[in-house]
Each structure stands twice: as structure tokens, then as C-alpha cells.
């Protein structure tokens, strides 16, 4: 359904003295999503997760330049095509209730989303009713304002915004942080349901545990690049390919709880070779000479010259 290869996003900035600076915030990003599948995109903040969503929706700031290719259902996604598809075929489930207008009723806003997806007014209203019923939101919730929703309700309203569009690709941006554990489970189940209904779901998160509960595959992002794409089960079976993924997995509390030392390289001074080289235990001269290519390995994908079969 969606395939992204070698996506690059560069911001042009002017610093003091009006010198032009190019910030490569995303370099060589790869991802593919099939219909009926949940693909989790995990990575620390600054790894390019949210920017990927913004690129897909055509809402990057004006000073951003794209390179590489994105295809949706075989067709190349140009920024114009993104703008045509967003809200209709590609939908975003935003991070928090802060993405709803504080001064507009919840029902009014979800209704507006349905209308933007191409439904007539009455039909849109009916679909809001249907969707609210599906998520156990009573009709009175329509007249509430975002600040009057509980955490769980807010999540269900946000999921509703994607469901009323009948989008085929749904991007959920960090849906779980700060939620009660029960609500987390509920939210994740809702996302899983969307995939079961045949949609492709991209789950953007920094929470590997949450991702593994519902994802079919996990793409690990590091400093704006895809370092590994693994099946969810590869994590538990120890079939991980990239040293960063392994380190990330070890850093979880239920595993060894060893944090990964160091930081991601800043986009202002990316190394010539592997972006992970300054934190990698396996680093060698081949690593620092040039960027490793993404290659297929043990029925997954990895961007590391030393990962073995």
C-alpha cells in the first residue's frame, strides 16, 4: 500500500548573518506498509518519526525540501498528491486533545473531519453518530468541548476522527504516553481493529513495549534513517539485526535496563559513514567510510555492514 524509499527531508535555515544552512533531518528513510497491517515506527525523539507523518500528510513547513520516493498504491506521492489524499485516504490520529480546537464542540469538529473527507452534511452527521456509538461515546459528548473530556474519552474521540474519514492508511502519532494503563490497552486495541478492517496503520511511538503488543512489524528509526525493519516476534526471539535495535531492546526495564550511552548525531554535523558509528561497539573502518545500505537479512531489513545472517 505504502512504500517509502530513501526519503530525505532537508530544512533550509538562515542563521545570524543570513548564512544559509541545510539541515538534513531525515536521510535515507525506508518504510513499507501493507493493507491490514500495523507497522510500528519506533525511535527516540529527533529520529524523524513525526516528520515522516508530516511528510506523508504534506504538512511540513515551507522551508523543507523532500528527496527520495514515496509511493501510495503504486502511485508516486508528490506533495500535491499528499495534499489531495490527506483527510480522505490518509488520516492522522493526533497525539493529544491539544490537537482539537479548544473553542469548538467535539461533535462539530469530528463532523467537519467527515465533511472534509467528502461526505455531505447529513451523511457526515450520521457517520459521526455511528462512529461515536462504536466507541461508546454517548450523543451528549458531541456537545462537549475538548476540555470536558476524560483521558479515555479523548482518545476515543481522536480515533473517531480517523474512522469517519474511511481512510485506508491511518497514522497514529504517539497515542499512548501519559495514559492510564487500561486506556493504553484500549487505544492499542482500537488501532489493531482498524488494521483488521483492512486499513494500513502506522503507529508512531517511542514505546517499544506498547508497539509490540499490536504491531506486525517494527521499523526502528535512528537520526532520521531506518536502521532496521523487523517482525514483532523477532524482538522476543532475539532475532534482532542492528546493534541499535539490540541496545534499545536491552534498555527496557524488564530486560537488562542498560541505557544506550551517547546521543544521536545532530543534523548539523552528520558523520560521513554509518550514523550510529560513534555509539556502536562493532564499529570498523568500513562503517565510517560510507553510509551502509539497507539490505535484506533473515527476512527483515537492516542498515549495518556487520550484521550477520
Amino acid at each position, binding site marked *: 500500500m505504502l512504500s517509502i524509499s530513501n526519503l530525505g527531508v532537508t530544512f533550509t535555515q538562515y542563521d545570524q548573518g543570513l548564512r544559509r544552512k541545510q539541515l538534513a533531518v531525515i536521510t535515507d528513510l525506508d518504510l513499507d506498509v501493507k493493507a491490514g497491517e500495523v507497522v510500528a515506527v519506533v525511535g527516540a525523539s529527533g529520529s524523524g518519526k513525526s516528520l515522516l507523518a508530516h511528510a506523508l500528510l504534506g504538512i511540513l513547513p515551507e522551508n523543507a525540501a523532500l528527496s527520495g520516493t514515496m509511493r501510495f498504491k503504486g502511485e508516486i506521492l508528490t506533495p500535491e498528491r499528499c495534499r489531495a489524499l490527506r483527510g480522505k485516504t490518509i488520516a492522522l490520529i493526533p497525539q493529544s486533545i491539544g490537537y482539537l480546537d479548544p473553542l469548538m464542540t467535539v461533535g462539530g469538529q469530528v463532523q467537519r473531519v467527515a465533511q472534509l473527507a467528502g461526505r455531505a452534511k447529513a451523511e457526515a452527521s450520521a457517520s459521526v453518530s455511528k462512529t461515536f456509538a462504536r466507541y461508546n461515546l454517548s450523543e451528549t459528548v458531541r456537545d462537549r468541548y475538548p*476540555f470536558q473530556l476524560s483521558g479515555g474519552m479523548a482518545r476515543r474521540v481522536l480515533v473517531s476522527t480517523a474512522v469517519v474519514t474511511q481512510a485506508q492508511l491511518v497514522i497514529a502519532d504517539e497515542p499512548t504516553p501519559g495514559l492510564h494503563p487500561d486506556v493504553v490497552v484500549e487505544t492499542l486495541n482500537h488501532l489493531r481493529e482498524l488494521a483488521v478492517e483492512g486499513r494500513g496503520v502506522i503507529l508512531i511511538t517511542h514505546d517499544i513495549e506498547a508497539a509490540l503488543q499490536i504491531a506486525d512489524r517494527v521499523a526502528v528509526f535512528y537520526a532520521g534513517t531506518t536502521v532496521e525493519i523487523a517482525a514483532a516476534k523477532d524482538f522476543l526471539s532475539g532475532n534482532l539485526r542492528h546493534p541499535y535495535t539490540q541496545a534499545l531492546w536491552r534498555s527496557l526495564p524488564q530486560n537488562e535496563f542498560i541505557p544506550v550511552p551517547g546521543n544521536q548525531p545532530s543534523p548539523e554535523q552528520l558523520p560521513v559513514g554509518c550514523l550510529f558509528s560513534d555509539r556502536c561497539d562493532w564499529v570498523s573502518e568500513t562503517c565510517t567510510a560510507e553510509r551502509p545500505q539497507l539490505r535484506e537479512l533473515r527476512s527483515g531489513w537492516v542498515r549495518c555492514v556487520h550484521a550477520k545472517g
Partner: protein
Amino acid sequence: MRIKALLIGATIFAAQKLLRLGLLLIAVAVFTFVLLSLSPIDPVKAYIGADMMQISPEQQALIAERWGLDQPIWSRFLDWLGQLLQGNMGTSLVFNQPVSQVIALRFQASLQMLAIAWFLSGLLGLGLGIIAGALQGRWIDRLIRLYAYTLASSPTFWVALLLLIVFAVSFKVAPICCAAPPGVLSGNVTFWQHLHHLLLPAVALSIIGIANITLHTRQKLIDVLHSDYVLFAQAQGESLWNIIRYHGFRNILLPAITLQFASLSELFGGSVLVEQVFAYPGLGEATVQAALRSDIPLLVGIVFFSALFVYTGNTLADLAYPLIDPRIQLGGQRSL
């Protein structure tokens, strides 16, 4: 439950407002009295004017005594306060009429001008601000900002004089002064003559407010356009103008209303200068006369009245908030 909470909120709101108004008015009265008592202008001399030489010191003392000017300031103040509580604002020395009558008459003339200026500056300011904010960085935004900064930094009386020179002197499309054509009795002034005399001062006055409202609206809209909820609206495919229509408008309305009512006091202040330039017989012009001739009762009356006027405006704004933003409740509690 909700109704009861609302009632309690409204009661607290009313009580707070009244208490604050009372304190404000007392403070204003004391302040004005003290300032005027320090003023170097002698009210008796100011009243008599050029005839001063022909009036003996005894007669002057008699006038002073007749007006209570020989009393110390605090006793005059208490006197005035006592009268005020009985609904009597005193008699104007300049107009030789009860202060309340002078204010009522003059305010009627000013009110129309203020109202026109207020609406004009509000509408134009909001419109220009929205255009500039939506098209931030484009040439039209720069043009509007240049215009606003120029206006914001030019003094009111200068703008008024400029308008007078251009429209009344050069093009002769507007009258040069006053509220009615010369020699026409106030009862015989037609509506159009009235409007004709009103328009130029009102426009001059509105120009003060426009710049401020434009720049504030622009900034607020830019903030809104950078918010998360606008990002989400964009992700749904909402166009720029629809974003402004559905989200921008709602979210800039509150600060716009606050600003619009706050601008009342500026307009009031501006009207003093504008009425002076156009010799328009409104409250502002009366203020200048009262101040120059140490007409304490009239001046205090006017100051009092304008404080009340501006305060009422701000209270109206407060009342409007909960209608626009459901998070705001009367009585000060902000629920969340």
C-alpha cells in the same frame, strides 16, 4: 447543580465588579481633586478672564466664598461627595449649568462620534489584522504592517489636522468645524448635515484604534495558525481560509473583544484632541475647557463619568467571555 453554580458565579461576579467600581470611583475622585488643588490656575481668575482688572479683591473674595473656594480642599471634597451621594454632581463654573446636564448634552454629541469610530476601528483593524496574519510575510502583510506602524507612531492631533487640511481645506468635501453648519439652530439640523459634520472627526478618531487592533489581531492569528489544532486541521485537508473561518475566528475573537473594549479608554482620550482640532462640541472639548479654567465640579464629573463608561465597557467584555470560551466562567473560577 449547574444552574446553582452559575447563579453563585454570577453573584460573586456582580459583587466583585461593584466593589471594584466603588473603589475605582473614589480613587479617581480623590486623585482629580488633589491634582486640581495643586494646579497653578486660580479658578476665580479663570472665570472672570479679561475683566479681572475691573473687579475688586473684595468682589473676588465674594465669588470665591460663593463657590466655596475659600474652604480647604478636604472640606470641599467632603461637600462634593455628600452632594454626589444625593445625586447632585454640582454646578459647572464654565457653563453655569448643572454638571449632569452638561455631561448629558456633551456626551450625546460625542457618543455618535465614538460609536462610529469604535466600530470603524474594530472592523477595519480586525479585517486588516486577519489578512496580514493569514498572509504573513507576503507583500500585503508588509504593506499593512507599514501602514499600521506609521499610524501607531503619528500623534492623533496631527492625523486630525492632516485630514482637516486634505478633506476640508483642499477638497472641500467636509466641513471645517463644529457639529452643524453655522447659523443653523440645533433643532433644524438635518440627519445628513449631522452625519456630514460627524464623519471626519469620527474617521480621525478611529485611525488611532486601527493600528493597535490590526497589529494585535495579526499576531494572535499567527499564533493560532502555528497551533497544534491548526496543524491537525491542515492534515485533514482544510484550506487556509476555512481554517481561519472555523478555527482562527473563534480563537482570535476573545482577545479581539478584550482589545476592542480596552480601546474605549483610548478613544475617549483621543476624542479630547480630535474634538479640539475639529471644534466639535463634545465631551472631549468640554474636558479641555473645564481643565483650562479649573472647573473642578465639571472636570471631576467628566472624569467620573468616563471612568464609569470605560468600566462598563470592560464589564461587558467580561460578560461576553463565557459565551465565546466555555472554559471561562463568571466569578473568576476557570474550570479545568
